[in-house]
């Protein structure tokens, strides 16, 4: 059984029909990517899974348990954690406090400390800056912090929304290497990216979204070879 199942989901912003019967699945240990143009519904999909938006129809299940009517903070407690678009670190909290907020659902303070140490092993830069306000970090460091913060909740499924957005190319490589590494360590990841080229290189499978619908789904490898994907999203003639 898939760890995360999205089934025939319809989400609206007021009268705007943003997701039109979207379905997808993520298996344990996979990286699955959603690619598509601006406004295709990628972020909407993640926010619907996270419970920030409520679907009018359809079901979202985590290992068979229905998440559709559960509030966002309880979805986090069940193990679906999102790194939002634009990083959204708490600028006026220190690096350490941001990580503590990521572990908000964790009651055991010893586990919180262990989690912080794990994040610092993954991102040594954050350790140097642990008492600094997050707002003073560079874009790349903020992305590390945002990912580290999400890892603090010990996610079963990690939702990443545009992790490479606004970063210098060298940082983009390092972020994707980190995603790959997290996955090698066993993390299940649903990745939304504008940078389809990079995303399809590390993804096991991918879905192509257009105006709120899945128009194509295949393995990462096959999508990279696909004529339509090459033209529309990889910029290859």
């Amino acid at each position, binding site marked *: 059984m898939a760890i995360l199942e999205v089934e025939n989901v319809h989400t609206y912003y007021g009268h705007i029909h943003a997701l039109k019967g979207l379905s997808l699945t993520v298996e344990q240990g996979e990286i699955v990517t959603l690619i598509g143009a601006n406004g295709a519904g990628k972020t909407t999909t993640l926010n619907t899974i*996270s*419970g*920030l938006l409520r679907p009018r129809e359809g079901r979202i299940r985590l290992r068979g348990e229905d998440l559709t009517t559960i*509030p*966002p*903070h309880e979805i*986090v*407690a069940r193990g679906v*954690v*999102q790194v*939002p678009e634009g990083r*959204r670190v*708490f*600028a*006026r*909290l220190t690096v350490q*406090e941001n990580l*503590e*907020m*990521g572990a*908000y*659902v964790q009651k055991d303070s010893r586990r919180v400390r262990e989690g912080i140490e794990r994040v610092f092993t993954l991102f040594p830069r954050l350790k140097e800056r642990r008492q600094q306000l997050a707002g003073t970090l560079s874009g790349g460091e903020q992305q590390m912090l945002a990912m580290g*913060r*999400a890892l603090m*909740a010990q996610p079963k499924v990690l939702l990443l929304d545009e992790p490479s957005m606004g970063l210098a190319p060298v940082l983009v490589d390092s972020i994707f290497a980190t995603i790959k590494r997290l996955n090698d360590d066993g993390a299940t990841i649903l990745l939304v990216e504008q940078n389809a080229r990079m995303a399809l290189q590390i993804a096991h499978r991918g879905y192509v979204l257009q105006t709120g619908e899945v128009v194509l789904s295949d393995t990462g490898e096959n999508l990279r070879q696909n004529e339509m994907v090459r033209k529309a999203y990889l910029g290859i003639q």
Partner: protein
Amino acid sequence: MYTSLTEKLIDWSIALYLWGFRIIVVLIVVIGTVLTLIGGKYNSQQWIDFVVFGIAQGSIYALIALGYTMVYGILRMINFAHGEIFMSGAFSAYFVASALEQSGFLDQNPLVALVLIMLVAMAASTGIALLVERVAYRPLRQAPRLVPLISAIGASFFLQYTFRGLFGPGVYAYPVVELLQGEWTFFGINILKAQVVVTIAAVLMMLGLYTIVMRTKIGKAMRAVSEDKATAALMGINVDRVIVTTFALGAAMAGVAGVLYALVFRQVNFFMGFVPGIKAFTSAVLGGVGNIPGAMLGGLFLGIFESLGPALFLESLGIVAPYQLKDAIAFTMLVLVLIFRPSGILGEKLTAKKA
């Protein structure tokens, strides 16, 4: 960018008006102060009395202002019912205080009794604040910003007239605590005991609150929610619970402030929350609304300024009843701050995201 002549004229006249306003205010303060100091009408003990009273009064404003500023920080909403939350605390504690006085407990164990009175005030204020949040604000959380503001004004009137209906429009005399009567002498300066105790109690409460906000898990969550509610929810923070906690903490501070106010002025009345509420709101704006140290500073500043102001610069200008202008001074301050530093003393510039 192209600006027409009329637009320039308008800009200039606004600038001229603002500068005129600045100059007039500064002249009044400077001339008044100089005349007073030359006249030597008050001796140093009297000046100290003004300042000490100002500090006591100001620390009460500061305690109330915390509630305004914390709720604003989290919901970007002015809780106009907060003055009534303060009144509810003082009023409820009155009944306990007079019962304790009649039984003689207040005179036998004044400290225990005072703590008891404060706990009752905190409980009453918190209970009423949570009720108001649940009934009048939470259902309107997604509504345009004007809507909860109107609801807050409604809640404010509702509480005032509920207390008036239940207990009448009269003034109830607060029991006198013998322990707080008289003066203490420090280094040859006489200071009213009540004012010392009020100031110390208020400062302790503020330190406690500041520690909660800066050090505890729920305090950090409050700061996280005030920055970004959606992301806080994505981190597993129960945003509604954090909002409720914010209201509860602010209300507990207002409850204590209510008792302290009653200790200084020795009376309660259904309308007593209105003016201190507005003054505390002014303090919050003075300090930079949303900023906790700012609210404390703003409260103290306003308290001292309005206590000192009439004697310092109004009396010598030949104003007949300068002490009646206390409130006018407070609100002139508000207008001045709004004109010249809209973000307050410690406030940051409002960015487009926050405004």
